[in-house]
């Protein structure tokens, strides 16, 4: 079963860049000057890589958030990181700095993280619920501020903001991919370095504490690493929902192993899920691509509910 899925995933990854609005015959790729070559290397391939890394970051972020908050409903967006990015993107658009919106988005995500950590320093080590509530309160605050941005923006600006909130994988060239590769590597390195601590956190805070773990520090390092990586991802693509929620759950149900053993599978299949969603979004034959965030939720929600029902039997 696992091998069949892996084979299927690998095939999907390889064929993904070849499908889209224009057919790309294999032979055309070898000639650097023709248009197909450009489409493949400047648009399709970066897009597949973007989808893969963003999917991986979001899925792994979901796993970490669910572990730290001991709450299966947490996602990397639960603490308001995505809302912060969205608000700052809206601000960039309204102020006429659309071109700089990824920088603004990253700034918004990081500002959220900093606010959270300042607030969190006042809580005790075991009080992750309060941190969660602060994150939710921040999200509401940002949502209200976003409404203000919509209110004062022109029709064109409103459309741009709206489009960002739906998520998009439009990208040209490899510069951004390099940044995302670093973000992914950073996240994976931190998580692997804290793998033992992570496993202890999968039992209970008290148990982890009694084995000598600095629970608060560990939690914050993990949350910080996820938030930075997710901040980078969201600044390029906008908030893409559901990946961080469903991929860890699906993988746990397939592998039936403790979460610390699923770090790579969750990253990999999170990436595959987003590549697949994008592949479908690009090939439905509609006049313009369906926003990726819409598709992940359309695909993810029914499948997730199906798995929950199946898992309970």
């Amino acid at each position, binding site marked *: 079963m696992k091998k069949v899925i892996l084979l299927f995933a690998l095939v999907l990854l390889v064929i993904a860049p070849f499908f889209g609005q224009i057919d790309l015959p294999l032979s055309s790729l070898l000639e650097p000057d023709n248009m197909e070559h450009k489409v493949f290397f400047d648009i399709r391939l970066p897009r597949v890589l973007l989808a893969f890394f963003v999917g991986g970051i979001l899925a792994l972020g979901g796993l970490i958030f669910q572990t730290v908050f001991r709450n299966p409903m947490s996602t990397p967006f639960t603490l308001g990181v995505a809302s912060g990015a969205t608000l700052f993107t809206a601000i960039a658009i309204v102020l006429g700095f659309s071109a700089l919106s990824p920088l603004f988005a990253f700034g918004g995500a990081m500002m959220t993280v900093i606010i959270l950590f300042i607030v969190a320093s006042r809580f005790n080590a075991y009080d992750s619920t309060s941190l969660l509530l602060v994150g939710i309160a921040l999200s509401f605050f940002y949502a209200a501020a976003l409404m203000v941005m919509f209110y004062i923006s022109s029709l064109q600006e409103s459309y741009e903001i709206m489009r960002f909130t739906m998520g998009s994988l439009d990208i040209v060239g490899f510069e951004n991919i390099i940044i995302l590769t670093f973000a992914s590597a950073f996240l994976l390195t931190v998580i692997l370095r804290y793998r033992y601590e992570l496993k202890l*956190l999968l*039992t209970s805070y008290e148990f982890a504490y009694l084995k000598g773990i600095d629970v608060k520090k560990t939690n914050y390092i993990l949350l910080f690493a996820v938030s930075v990586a997710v901040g980078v991802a969201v600044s390029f693509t906008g908030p893409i929902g559901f990946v961080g929620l469903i991929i860890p759950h699906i993988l746990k149900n397939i592998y039936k192993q403790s979460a610390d053993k699923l770090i790579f599978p969750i990253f990999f299949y999170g990436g595959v899920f987003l590549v697949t969603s994008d592949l479908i979004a690009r090939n439905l034959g509609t006049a313009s691509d369906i926003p990726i965030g819409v598709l992940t939720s359309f695909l993810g929600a029914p499948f997730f509910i199906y798995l929950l029902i199946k898992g309970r039997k």
Partner: protein
Amino acid sequence: MPINITDYTNNILKNISFSLEYGEDLIILGANGVGKTTLAKVLCGIFPSEAVRIDSITPSKVYGETRARLINYIPAKLDVFDEFITVREFLELGLIRGVAREQHPTTVDDVLQMLSIKHLADKACKLLSSGESQLLLIASALLHDAKYTIFDEPTANLDPKKMQILFNILKYDTLLQSKLIITHNLDLAYKLGFNILFLEDGSIKFHGSNADFFKQTHLDTIYDGSVEKYQNNIVVKL
């Protein structure tokens, strides 16, 4: 390296001071809600307090192996978040940083054998019964090998046979170093023969020898005649 708590007060406990020499064992008794579990969590540093010193170290101020070697707390209930962590994996985590000391050659398989739960090794912790969970916690205490181990109601869910196994471990086994045992089982407390610390209204009402505590006249004053010694057993009158 004694464990010391000096004049500790919070919203439940009042002016708690006592010390326990390394190598000695202690039984902590008291009514429901009197603060026994709170005291345990204060001693091991889950509720941090500078009033606690073990070998002049405050557990909540140190990290890593240093703290883990000082004191361990075994809660009344097993708490595992992950659905798929197995009994064996949990026990491997029971070893500090996954390594057994040379002086303490007990392995995961040894403790599974000792507590006759070998058949559960590959079962997910989440699927254990309350009695099995309790045995798993005790097994992890044996592997952890702290200087002081606090057991919070270790017998609450055990069947009679398992109770005997646990009694023998607590009384005779040398794997555990100093033990502090919170219990409501007076007969167990009596048979173990360790010194007694009795809490009432958040304060220490008695701290002394087992023999003094279990004198009938003393039992009468403490339990208002609801407990008696009968043929060398402590029985609750029902």
